[in-house]
């Protein structure tokens, strides 16, 4: 991978997509486990538990957190333990270069 752009830091971008009923819990969890912020959007989707669209079926929520590697691992571990068995949920991590990286770590 090429060098990160000037003045940027490598951090992890953790994305969680889960059923909307979990929204408050997930936000509480990621903050407790060290995320300094998050971005949230409303999405719909389909996975192993079928379609999730609309208010009655229950839509999904998408949370993105810029975090350090340790925090990312901690959040993934906790989410796996708490939600992945019974709830519709997906989580993945990637590398990004962020401006003012010290804010997120």
């Amino acid at each position, binding site marked *: 991978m090429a060098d990160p752009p000037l003045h940027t830091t490598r951090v992890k971008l953790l994305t969680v997509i889960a*059923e909307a009923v979990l929204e408050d819990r997930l936000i509480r969890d990621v903050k407790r486990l060290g995320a300094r912020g998050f971005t949230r959007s409303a999405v719909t989707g389909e996975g192993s538990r079928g379609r999730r669209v*609309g208010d009655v*079926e229950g839509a999904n929520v998408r949370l993105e957190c810029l975090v350090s590697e340790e925090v990312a691992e901690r959040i993934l571990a906790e989410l796996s333990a708490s939600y992945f068995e019974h709830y519709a949920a997906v989580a993945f991590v990637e590398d990004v270069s962020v401006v003012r990286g010290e804010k997120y770590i």
Partner: protein
Amino acid sequence: MELLQTNLLTPVVLAFVLGAIAARVGSDLRLPDPIYATLSIYLVFAIGLKGGASLSQSSLSEVALPGVAALLLGCATPVWCYALLRRTADLSREDAAALAAHYGSISIVTFMAGIAYLDSIQVEYEGFVPAFAAMLEVPGIAVALFLARRGSGKSSREGLIETLTGRSIVLLTGGLVIGLLSGPEGVEKVSAFFIDPFQGVLALFLLEMGRVASSRLGDLRQSGAVLMAFAIIGPAFHGLLGVALGWLTGLSEGGSFALGILSASASYIAAPAAVRLSLPEANPSVYLTPVLAVTFPFNLTLGIPLFHTFARWFHG
């Protein structure tokens, strides 16, 4: 038969049918989510306001007895549903409790369709009946969650708090209190928005519910005959019970009918949210499919004239 036709050929019921057909033929017709959410805020708040204004005109003695009956019904319904489903339908403890929560709680939209029916055949009812909706909604869910958790050591506190602070309860009780405090003259000032267009808004909402219900039809095959039977016999029995209790506690024909349809209705907003949080092991298609694809359309189309027939028997 005539009651059936009167009920079926109203814009409210026909809009539901149109929504279902549109979904069947693969139409892109659907209400955007924010609109769906807002219409349900509107409907619940409006029914609360109307009930509250009427409550402010009623004496405690009229209200108390049927109110206690509604409360008892709310507590008892999930118990027998749970027991019956555990025994006959071969469901896990969580699935049985989840269904009990849905049938113990209520659907305010089903109730509204019943009220719209009464209005259209010009049968009077006690205006304070919507207040009973608040009394039926919470206990049904609470008792069912308790049944599932009994002995498991886990708590269902979060699900319960979610129910109590959920928008349906807050808006219904909030609307009741506002209607009570501002009285008929106060509610009059907002009636051009909250009262007059009510049936039309309900029709638009049911257009969307038709789509939702029909999209569940595909899952019906997996549900098994016992569950399907329960999804019709259960509400029919709860409706009969509600009508009977209304009659016993002094409600009019219209009021008994209203308590009947309320009791027959099964929740598809408050209960699913609470169950999802507190009983994640329960399988959503076990509880949502019967409620949305069978009970809701049954009550809307056949249940309403059926419970009116019951009410006529008792009051006849």
